[in-house]
């Protein structure tokens, strides 16, 4: 790294209670949420996201019904926190402004409006309302590896024009290499207003969560999404405690206590996992082929049910350029592949 980042102040944003809902099939209990959120708060984490894994209104057959409603989670967690603030995620097409208003009423200070990286113009009504309500309003461009930096800039400018005060380049597939992150964040930094903050959201599918996040900081990002204990879809988000340790070594200031946060990871997060969230042949495939990380568990279940290896399903979804939200196409694709291979007993269309 050419320039020293010593003294750079950044804000880490914990994802364990939102993106971390994916490996838990949205079944984190309210008590678990409360204990982890308190641990994060005590460790100095300034911002915590709490929502269904697919954002407000994500409760569905398609993405999974959660253990509690978004409102129940938010109302349970927010009053407990001494310093930390809470954010909610909203994907237009899934959630609506009604959900946004509910979340604001619960006391979230940040609303993050997420679209596929080429479809920023569906976020206008939600971003405009978030800003009007005085919320910290973030435009979250998902699967940002799929377009070139100049095109990403165009989409970011739309979100900025609607009122977003922070723009994220989101590596939903955990596909980006550090140079891809640098190119995108640098292009955004050069093109957006100086007062517009930049953020990066990584997935650890190629084990690059930490190094990509450092590259983002070096290129001008000041908000970094991480998840305590490496929770999150696919092989998880950038592991928070590891990122904090690296920031400490580099002199990047986060305000988070590395030992306290590693205790939260080990004592509170790890014990609730149903399986180790880590790089295996399937999560590796996500990062290798550029596939939306939340597809992982659906592909595993389709493997169980239809006998097609999850890796092959994921590769096919990538080949068909599926985007976030198309979880329904996983069973559909597995069915079609199973029929082609003569594995289908029934449930076949003509």
């Amino acid at each position, binding site marked *: 790294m050419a320039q020293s980042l010593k003294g750079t102040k950044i804000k880490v944003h914990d994802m364990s209670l939102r993106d971390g809902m994916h490996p838990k099939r949205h079944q984190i209990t309210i008590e678990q949420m409360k204990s982890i959120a308190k641990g994060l708060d005590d460790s100095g984490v300034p911002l915590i996201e709490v929502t269904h894994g697919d954002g407000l209104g994500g409760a569905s*057959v398609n993405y999974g019904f959660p253990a509690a409603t978004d409102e129940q989670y938010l109302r349970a967690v927010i009053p407990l926190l001494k310093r930390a603030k809470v954010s909610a995620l909203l994907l237009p*097409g899934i959630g609506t402004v009604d959900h946004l208003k509910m979340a604001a009423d619960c006391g979230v200070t940040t609303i993050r409006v997420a679209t*596929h990286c080429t479809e920023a*113009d569906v976020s206008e009504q939600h971003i405009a309302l978030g800003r009007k309500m005085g919320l910290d309003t973030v435009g979250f461009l998902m699967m940002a590896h799929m377009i070139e930096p100049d095109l990403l800039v165009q989409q970011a400018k739309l979100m900025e024009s609607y009122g977003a005060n922070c723009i994220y380049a989101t590596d939903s597939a955990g596909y980006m290499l550090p140079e891809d992150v640098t190119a995108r964040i640098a292009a955004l930094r050069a093109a957006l207003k100086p007062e517009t903050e930049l953020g990066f959201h990584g997935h650890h599918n190629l084990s690059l969560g930490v190094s990509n996040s450092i590259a983002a900081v070096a290129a001008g990002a000041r908000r970094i999404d991480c998840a305590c204990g490496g929770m999150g879809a696919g092989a998880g988000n950038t592991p928070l405690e590891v990122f904090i340790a690296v920031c400490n070594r580099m002199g990047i200031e986060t305000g988070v206590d590395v030992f306290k946060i590693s205790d939260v990871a080990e004592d509170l997060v790890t014990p609730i996992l149903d399986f180790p969230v880590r790089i295996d042949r399937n999560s590796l495939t996500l990062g290798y082929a550029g596939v939306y990380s939340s597809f992982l568990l659906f592909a595993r279940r389709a493997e169980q049910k239809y006998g097609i290896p999850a890796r092959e399903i994921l590769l096919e979804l990538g080949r068909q350029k599926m*985007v976030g939200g*198309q979880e*329904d196409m996983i069973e*559909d694709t597995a069915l*079609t592949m199973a029929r082609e291979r003569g594995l289908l007993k029934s449930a076949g269309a003509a």
Partner: protein
Amino acid sequence: MSRKIKCAIIGPGNIGTDLLYKLRRSKVLEPVWMVGVDPTSEGLARAREYGLKTTDKGVDGLLPHVKADGVQIAFDATSAYVHKQNSDKLNALAVMMIDLTPAAIGPYCVPPINLMEHAGKREMNVNMVTCGGQATIPMVYAVSRVQKVKYAEIIATVASKSVGPGTRKNIDEFTRTTAGAVSKIGGADEGKAIIVINPAEPPLIMRDTIHCLTVDAPKQKEIEQSVRDMVAEVQTYVPGYQLVNGPVFDGNRVTSFMQVAGLGDFLPTYAGNLDIMTAAATRTAEMFAEEILAGRLQLQPVAA
């Protein structure tokens, strides 16, 4: 030549123009007016080439000609904001209105489910719900007519190129309206709708997934037959309506995976989402026209 019912199309954009192509093929409908607001509109020029009269003064430009030209059915392919005004003005002249906007001031119409009922009730304004609604509600109904559905959820995935600026500016309207109609017309106790926009090139053909949660264990044989019958029914006006996979039975979940290819009239075939709207609107108008031609229906002016 047999008599045809004369129609006006309001809104010379993609939807209005595709509608024009479909109406020109109809045995009982004849498009005679295209209404716009922009004198330089390509859609108006194209309509003139096909021999339609046009105005760039909005519905007010059409009103003085309604009687002389015998217009009895109008299609509104503009926006929710102006629909009520358009409808009131034309209803007052006894012109029946088919609403392709999300305004939904009249009852929802999904042809294979309730078109007959609307024609019987002589409705003067019917609403075509949304593209996702037209593509999925028949499949919800195919299950709910067999047994009680406590929850139905639809996921519509459409090509980025087929989603216009109006839908993008108010995508919540799509999710809300569709969810409401999934429940009300589809016959589920509760409805949910999700829309996903995919920018892949070449553009993907519209895909729709319909999940129903039944109260009791699904009657598989009956549902399979009902789904097949319903697909055939929709295919009478949208030949590219196809069951790709399913129905899948998983506990009390019944899931159908659809693909909707358009006819490729004015809009490309991948835009099945737009085609199913114009096809359903045409089918609806034809039913009303048949009733008028048979002397069973006489449209009456409605005071606004």
